[in-house]
Every structure is written in structure tokens, then in C-alpha cells.
């Protein structure tokens, strides 16, 4: 027998207002891309809207439910590198405008990257100069491998190996 708690428009909007920022921050931290985070947020709430008649409070409230949907959306984004818009199409949600500069800043604030940034800074400090250099070129400056190889005076294959090893060491420092 169905729970109709989220069926009324006001109830769904109240639910949205309660969780929208947390969901947006969840995506912003994991994608590091505000535009993608905004699309995933819209897709998640469109899916929640489409499924609202089946919402059941299992005791831990609607947050558990909506973050379950968000996790699935994020997994599919990781797999395909694109944000689906099935749910938005299904309920007729219009395309959104590009984010304003103010929104980009506020989403950064919302995501609060400070703890992550500090952890990365500490891990980078523990790497060798060579590792830091190669990660700077590839990860920070997004230079193509042929250019990195030319700058480092090595083959393209060797540049790939150095980047890979640098990332592995960075990951090791972050994990520890």
C-alpha cells in the first residue's frame, strides 16, 4: 500500500528544499565540475519526482532515499562520462541555463574543498620534485603526452609511465 507523503506539490517542493544543497555539494565534491554537478542534481531530483509515489520512509527519512538515487546517477556518470537526462525528459524538465559566475563561486563554497585541498597539498609536498613536476604538467596544466615527453626529454611512453607512477605515489600518500 503506497505512501503518498511526497505526492502533493508542496510536499515535494519542501523535500527538494531540504535536500537540494546537500545533493549539489555531494556531486560537486565528487565530480569537481560545477556544471556536471548541476546536471546530476537536476537529473536526481527529476528521478525522485518521477518516483515520489513509491517513496517509503524506512526510518532514516528521505535523505537516504534521495542519496541512493544520487549514487546511482553518479555511478552511471563515472561509467559513461556523460550525464543522462532520461528522468528530466520523462517528467518534462526544461534545459537549464549555464551557471552564472556567482553560482560557480557559491557551488565551490558549498562543496568546501578546503579539507580535500589541504590533504592534496600535504601529499604533494611529500612527493619528489620529479613527481611533482610531471603531475603539474599533466594534471594541473592538462598538457598532452607528446608535449610532456618533449619537455622532459623522454619518450611519450616513458612520460605516461612517469605520470602513472606519480599518481600512484600521490594516491599512496593520500591514503596514508
Amino acid at each position: 500500500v503506497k505512501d503518498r507523503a511526497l505526492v502533493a506539490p508542496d510536499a515535494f517542493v519542501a523535500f527538494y528544499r531540504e535536500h537540494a544543497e546537500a545533493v549539489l555539494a555531494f556531486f560537486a565534491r565528487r565530480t569537481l565540475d560545477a556544471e556536471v554537478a548541476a546536471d546530476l542534481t537536476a537529473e536526481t531530483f527529476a528521478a525522485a519526482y518521477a518516483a515520489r509515489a513509491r517513496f517509503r520512509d524506512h526510518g532514516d527519512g528521505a535523505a537516504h532515499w534521495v542519496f541512493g538515487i544520487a549514487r546511482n546517477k553518479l555511478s552511471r556518470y563515472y561509467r559513461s562520462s556523460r550525464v543522462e537526462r532520461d528522468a528530466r525528459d520523462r517528467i518534462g524538465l526544461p534545459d537549464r541555463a549555464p551557471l552564472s559566475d556567482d553560482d560557480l563561486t557559491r557551488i565551490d563554497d558549498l562543496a568546501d574543498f578546503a579539507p580535500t585541498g589541504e590533504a592534496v597539498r600535504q601529499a604533494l609536498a611529500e612527493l619528489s620534485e620529479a613527481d611533482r613536476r610531471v603531475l603539474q604538467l599533466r594534471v594541473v596544466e592538462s598538457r598532452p603526452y607528446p608535449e610532456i615527453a618533449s619537455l622532459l626529454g623522454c619518450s611519450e611512453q616513458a612520460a605516461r609511465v612517469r605520470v602513472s607512477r606519480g599518481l600512484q605515489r600521490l594516491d599512496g600518500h593520500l591514503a596514508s
Partner: protein
Amino acid sequence: MRSDAMPEISFLQDLESDLRAIAEQDALRAPRRRARRRVGLATALGALVTAAIVFVVIGNPIGGAGSRIDAAAEAAVAPPNLIEHTVELTRLVESGQTVTVRQERWVATDSPASWRELNDDPADGGPIEQAESPTTVSSYDATGAVIYERTKPVNWKGADHSMAIDDMNVVRRALADASVSDQGTTTLDGQTVEQFDFGSRDTNGQACSYYATAGDLRPVALDCTNLLGHPWLSSHTTYEWLDPTPANSALLSLEGVHPDARIESAPLGECVQGQHYFGPSDPRDAPCAVNAPGG
């Protein structure tokens, strides 16, 4: 978490406006569906009155209906030490399309707080799998093969409190207070069954038919139709009780059905927002990872 203030991010404000407009539009469509149903309901009521007159004139063709309802009520009480397995198919209309959502659940009959549930909803982008035990609640991330498990506090709502919703309780209440009408023997998916119809306040205006086995009146299925015009049209739930073999008992937990999954544990209520555990890779969850049992 926000409650009354408008979100400061204009994207979120725009999204809220769009969702509100869609919700209000959909709400306006519902009365039209209700109006169409009233015509059908009038016909059905006419048929019911006719049937009632025939019933009074020729007598109850079934005989001993009260005792059959009592027997069905008794048989609907789950025996201990079994596993109740239910599959619920819900039909909905969304944006003019009919969608079917499948929910499958396994519940220990002597421990309602031990269950696993698999929800396959096209709108969710993939199945959502959750479980509860007397000491934990957990969810499964199929992509990373990770079980996110949260330990309940010691004073958690009592050991027998279950977060699962058991529609059979509605059936049991209806049978117990005899607010059902005995429809006699019928056929459901090729099986001869006994049919009991009801529509009490418990069902929020839904009309339900409960089917029990012809012999011992054990639960077979529950069909409910939504008369109020909300987005879902009908649900069809089938029941079976499984013996507690090791293989069947494994169906009650995420660890049982995903033995190779990695388990990330955290205490319930000490994680972000007190609601959700994001996993140790999220810096906000550091206290959860530190406090994890055995970790």
C-alpha cells in the same frame, strides 16, 4: 540542510520553480482522472447493488463466509522461523507513459528487523538494494561492489522495530476486523485461489483484492487499484514463505548475496547529516571511518 529559506544558488532556485510547475501541473491532471473513474465506479456500484439483491434473494452461495475469513486471518499470520518473500509490481503513469516498478523483499518472519529489499525503478537509473539487521542498516553500491553498513545505536527504537513496510499488515487488519468481502473461488495466473476484497481507511482509498491458496488459505497475492487518481495505477504483490535453509537465509542480508563485496562500516547517526554515509573517500566522513567498528 534548508527548510524555509530559498536556496541562494540561482540554479537551485530555477530548478525548484521548474519542479514546482511540473508538480502543480500533474496535480491538476489528477482530478480529470478521478472524474473518469467515477463513471466506472458508478457502473461498478450498480453491479454491486444488483449482486447484493441476488445475494439476498438466493442466499450466500459460498456459505460459512465468516469462518472462512477467520481461517484466512489465521493463515495470514506469518509462522515463525520462515522467510517471507514478496515481489511487488507497481504500474504508474508518468508523462503519459505507463511504467512498471519492481520491488522484491525478503523478511525473516520471526525477526521483522531482518530484511533485504531490491527496488528496480527505471527512474532511479538502476536497482537500489538495502537491508536491515537487528544491529545494522546497509545499502549496496553495485558499481564498486561495496556494502555501506551503519551500526544502529544501542537504544535504536527497540530491537523489534523494523524499517520495512509490510503490506500484509493491512491485509491482516482487514481480515481480523472482518472488513473484507468473501468473493469465493477464482483463478489467478492459472492457480485456483480464494478471493477477499476490501478497501478500508488503511488503504487510502485503494480497492484491494487479497488472494489466498484454496486449501490452507495462505497468502498468494495482493492487488490494489488506486481510486484517488494519484500517479500509481495499481500494484500486484505475490507472496511465498521460504524455509530457513542456509541458501534462503543468505537472501536476508547484503553480505549473504554479495559475499565478495567490501564492507565499509560506520555508526549510524554520527555521519554527515546524521543520515547518510558517503564512504571514507569523502573528507566529511573521516569521523565515521575512524569510529568504524574494527577499523
